[in-house]
């Protein structure tokens, strides 16, 4: 049974950016996801929690059509994508930005060409590409990596470059696949700060997958302070209203609501996860 606060109801005027309706998928075995229904409204940040192996990354790949559900439907920007041919999915995907678990940078390309990958395909003039790449790298505070290859970057730097690549075209939806997975606490905080900055500066709706509850709480209880250029905590007891939570247990969505509802949840799996 899903606990649902109703906070994630889509904006009545514009509709959800992303909506899953009774989505199920399996790979040669028991279902990885079963009957999953939720939506992401404009300006909303949804954090999908769950331990490793519950289908979080699969869900994220269903969101932009990298995988197709066995049952149910996925609506991206109001279009049903589950049955859309691959060719028609490419233009829709260019409106989204995705940050992969390990960055998934193209190791034969420089940081500049990685970040500018979409712009290069669109034959944007070189001068404009350089300017926009420098802006994007400045956002993630990695201007000095412009000419470097991914092999010479640390794990945290790769994630930051991946974030720059994801939002260089100002996408209408951002998908983060465990952006802090495998990173040390200090680097994780840097990545979360970038996500908070992106959320509060550009208000791009996003779906973030993580198994780290501390990152999720940090995201929800902090805001970006443009005056000082860093993340600061919200007043005691306040949370970001646009940041809500989902939780998966063995492929089923068992929670959908705010941080307050999450910490007050009586579901034994949620309780155990929060401990």
């Amino acid at each position, binding site marked *: 049974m899903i606990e649902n606060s109703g906070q994630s109801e889509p904006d009545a005027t514009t509709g959800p950016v992303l909506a899953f309706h009774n989505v199920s998928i399996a790979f040669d075995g028991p279902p990885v996801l079963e009957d999953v229904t939720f939506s992401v409204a404009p300006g909303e940040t949804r954090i999908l929690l769950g331990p490793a192996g519950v289908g979080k990354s699969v869900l994220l790949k269903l969101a*932009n059509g990298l995988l197709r559900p066995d049952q149910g439907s996925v609506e991206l920007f109001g279009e049903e994508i589950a049955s859309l041919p691959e060719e028609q999915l*490419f233009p829709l995907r260019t409106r989204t930005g995705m940050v992969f678990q390990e960055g998934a940078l193209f190791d034969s390309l420089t940081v500049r060409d990685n970040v500018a990958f979409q712009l290069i395909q669109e034959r944007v003039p070189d001068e404009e590409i350089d300017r926009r790449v420098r802006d994007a790298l400045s956002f993630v505070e990695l201007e000095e990596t412009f000419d470097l290859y991914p092999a010479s970057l640390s794990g945290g730097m790769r994630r930051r470059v991946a974030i720059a690549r994801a939002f260089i075209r100002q996408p209408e939806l951002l998908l983060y696949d465990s952006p802090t997975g495998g990173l040390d606490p200090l680097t994780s905080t840097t990545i979360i700060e970038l996500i908070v900055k992106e959320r509060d500066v550009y208000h791009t709706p996003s779906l973030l997958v993580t198994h780290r509850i501390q990152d999720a709480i940090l995201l929800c209880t902090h805001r970006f302070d443009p005056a000082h250029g860093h993340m600061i905590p919200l007043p005691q007891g306040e949370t970001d209203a646009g940041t809500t939570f989902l939780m998966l247990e063995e492929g089923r969505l068992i929670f959908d609501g705010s941080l307050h509802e999450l910490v007050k949840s009586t579901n034994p799996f949620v309780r155990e996860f929060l401990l």
Partner: protein
Amino acid sequence: MAIIMIEKHAKNLILTVQDYSIFSWRAFMNLFRPPIYWPEFLVQADIIGVGSLSIVVLSGLSTGGVLALQSAATLSAFGATAITGQFVSLTMIRELGPVLTGVMVSGRNASSMASELGSMVVTEQIDAMRALGVDPMRKLVTPRIFATIAMLFFLTIVANACGIAGGGLVTVFMNHQDGVQYFSKAWEALRYPDIIQGLVKPLFFGYILSSIGCFYGMRTTGGTEGVGRSTIQAVVWASVLIIFVDFLLTQVLLTFFPPL
């Protein structure tokens, strides 16, 4: 138990053939539909064509030399060593040039395509490309196939020339025969149908080795171990298919161009 295993393997084989058919059809149709990524084509043409030149030259020279050595020994029994040039040139141009070049290039490039694309799959670079709105089939697979077909055609010509030259060197310096006679026989024996046969084959072999290399690369699963497995399968299947298709093609081409 054994029957279940046979059934499972048979189903896997049929599924692989079906997947390959769909994959190679899509790749083939992409050759004629824009966008065609010309810069990627040129890069691949350099890697496949220029990069394979040394092994093709060496294998061509050696094969021509071996043919001259072996044929001279046999032909001398009939007092027909004068036709060594004819034997070497016809064998190289009609059969060994295209097949050897195909097998050599598949050993080098089908493996590199499978491992490169396989590594991209397991590190999610292929998914990242799709997520960025670019079709990996068009961006990665089609330029490789296009470049391999074009380059294998020219590499086969180089292998043929080197093979005839290698045969000539052996004929003159080891068999102590007349070089002018060797080359004039090699030239006189050639007819246009022989050349057409020899130049049609690399078009098919180039398509086979590149599509197999890309196919196994793009369906890699199971991390770095899976990349190794894909590489082996790509080289084995590309080489076997080249030899098998050579047999079929020779049958068909001999129907169109019967021997005199």
